[in-house]
C-alpha cells in the first residue's frame, strides 16, 4: 500500500493514483501512434552542441574520454529536435519520441528543470494537418475534448484589442507596461507581445478547451518556416490548455542557410545578454544540407498534459521527484 507522505524529503509527493493515471496516459499515447504506424525512436540526451535560443539555458557535463587528455563538454538536450531531424533527413519517415529535456534555471509550479517531452514529426504534413492530428490525440485522451483554433492576430484583436503585426513597437511596449504593472518596460516588441499573450490573452481562453494559436509573427519563428506568400508570418503554432502553454509546433524550416543565419542571430543576442555561447550544431546543419523532407513537428509538455487531464496545478504532483528531491 502506497504511503502518502508530504514534506518528507526522501518520499515522492505524488499519489499512487496519479502514478497509475500517468502510466495509463503514456499507454494511450503509445497506442495512438502505433495505430497510425508512426515509429518510436530514442535519440541521445547528451550532445556535443545544442540549440542557440537566447532564453533556453542549458546544463553541461563532461565526458572523460579515455583517449583524450582533455575532458569534453557535452550538453543535456533542451529538446530532441536536432537529432530527430537528422533521422528525418535520412528518410526514416514519421517518428515520435517520449523523452526527458533539460532547461536550466526554470523552476515553478509549471516548470521542473528536468521534464518530459512528447515530440513527433509528420513527413508530408503541413502545420494545419499536424494541428488536426494533435486534436485527434487530445480527443483520444480526453473524450469529447473541445478544440478551438485561432490565429495569433485574431487572439490579439479579440482579447487585447489591437493587431500585433501592425501595432507600433512603442504602443505595444506601453500597453504591456501599463496592463501588467511591469517594474520596467520591456526592451522590445516581441517580449511585450509574449507577455501580453501569456498573461492577458491566454487567461481569457476557455479553460477546459485545447486552444491552438497559429501564424506567429516572423520575429518569433524559432525553427519554423515563414509563409511563402507572407513572410511576415511564421508557420508556428502553440497549444494552450487549462491555463498552461502545452505545446509548440512548426512547419519545419528546411533550408540550412537560413537556419544557420538564425543560429548566428541567436548567438549575437546571447552575447548582448552576456549568456554563454554554445557551439552550433553542425551535424544538424549538415543533415539540412543533405535535405530535410517537407514535414511538420510538435513538442508537447507531457507533465503539463497530465496535470491538465487530472486537474492538478503543481508539476510536483505529477513528477516522482522534482529537482529539490532528486
Amino acid at each position, binding site marked *: 500500500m502506497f504511503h502518502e507522505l508530504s514534506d518528507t524529503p526522501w518520499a515522492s509527493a505524488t499519489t499512487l493514483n496519479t502514478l497509475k493515471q500517468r502510466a495509463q496516459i503514456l499507454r494511450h499515447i503509445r497506442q495512438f501512434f502505433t495505430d497510425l504506424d508512426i515509429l518510436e525512436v530514442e535519440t541521445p540526451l547528451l550532445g556535443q552542441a545544442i540549440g542557440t*535560443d537566447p532564453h533556453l539555458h542549458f546544463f553541461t557535463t563532461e565526458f572523460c574520454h579515455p583517449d583524450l587528455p582533455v575532458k569534453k563538454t557535452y550538453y543535456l538536450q533542451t529538446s530532441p529536435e536536432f537529432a530527430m531531424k537528422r533521422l528525418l533527413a535520412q528518410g526514416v519517415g514519421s517518428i515520435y519520441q517520449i523523452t526527458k529535456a533539460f532547461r536550466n534555471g526554470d523552476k515553478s509550479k509549471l516548470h521542473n528543470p528536468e521534464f518530459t517531452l512528447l515530440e513527433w514529426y509528420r513527413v508530408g504534413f503541413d502545420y494545419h494537418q499536424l494541428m488536426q492530428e494533435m486534436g485527434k490525440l487530445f480527443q483520444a485522451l480526453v473524450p469529447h475534448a473541445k478544440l478551438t483554433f485561432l490565429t495569433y492576430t485574431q487572439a490579439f484583436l479579440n482579447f487585447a484589442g489591437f493587431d500585433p503585426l501592425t501595432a507600433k513597437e512603442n504602443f505595444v511596449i506601453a500597453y504591456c507596461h501599463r496592463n501588467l*504593472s511591469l517594474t520596467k518596460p*520591456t526592451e522590445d516588441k516581441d517580449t511585450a507581445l509574449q507577455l501580453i499573450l501569456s498573461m492577458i490573452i491566454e487567461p481569457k481562453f476557455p479553460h477546459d478547451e485545447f486552444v491552438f494559436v497559429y501564424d506567429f509573427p516572423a520575429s*518569433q519563428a524559432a525553427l519554423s518556416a515563414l509563409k511563402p506568400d507572407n513572410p511576415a508570418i511564421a508557420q508556428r503554432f502553440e497549444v494552450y490548455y487549462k491555463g498552461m502553454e502545452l505545446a509548440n509546433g512548426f512547419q519545419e524550416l528546411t533550408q540550412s542557410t537560413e537556419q544557420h543565419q538564425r543560429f548566428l542571430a541567436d548567438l549575437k543576442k546571447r552575447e548582448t545578454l552576456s549568456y554563454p555561447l554554445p557551439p552550433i550544431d553542425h551535424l544538424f546543419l549538415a543533415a539540412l544540407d543533405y535535405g530535410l523532407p517537407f514535414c511538420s513537428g510538435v513538442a508537447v509538455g507531457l507533465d503539463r498534459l497530465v496535470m491538465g487531464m487530472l486537474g492538478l496545478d503543481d508539476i510536483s504532483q505529477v513528477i516522482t521527484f522534482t529537482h529539490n528531491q532528486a
Partner: protein
Amino acid sequence: MTTYSTNEFKPGLKVIMDNDPCSILENEYVKPGKGQAFNRVKLRNLKNGRVIERTFKSGDALEGADVMDVEMTYLYNDGTHWHFMSPETFEQHQTDATMVGDAKQWLKEQDTCIITLWNGSPLTITPPNFVNLVVTETDPGLKGDTSGGGGKPATLETGAVVRVPLFVQTGELIKVDTRTGEYVSRVK
C-alpha cells in the same frame, strides 16, 4: 542594506518597493512563449497595508528593508502620544494616534504588543490577539437569558464598543479577539 534578486523573493521577505517597506506575499516564475523569464510578485505595503502586484524581469533586484518585529510593553498615553517600552532593553518608543490606529481601542497598560520597526522607527502596532477588558457600560439585558441571541452593545474600559451576549453585566471582565473585535467569553 542587501539587495535581493527575484529568485530570492520568498513570502515574508521585507524589501523596499517605490520607497516604501513591503513584505513579499507571493512570487510566481513565468516564462511566456519560451521567451524571457519574469516574476509576478504580490507585495503588501507595510506603511498603508495595501496589496500591490508587480511583474519583474527575472533576475532584477530590490533593496532589502530593515524591518523588524519587536515585542514591547504598552505603558500609557497622554492623548497625543502612545508610549511603549522594550521589556529587554528598557528602550522607550512613542507613536502618535494615527500610527496606533485601531489598536488604540484594545490597549491596556502593561499589555505586550508587537511593534513593527522600519529603520528603527515604529511602522505599525499590533495588539495581542486576545485582551481582557472590563465592561464599563451596558444595558442590564433580560435576566436569566443565556441564549446569547442578537446580543447588546457594551462599552469597555478602553472605550471600545463590542457586541456581547445579553447576560453580560457592567463591571464584568470579558475576553475579546482583537483581530475580529468580537466577544469571546467572560473571564473569572
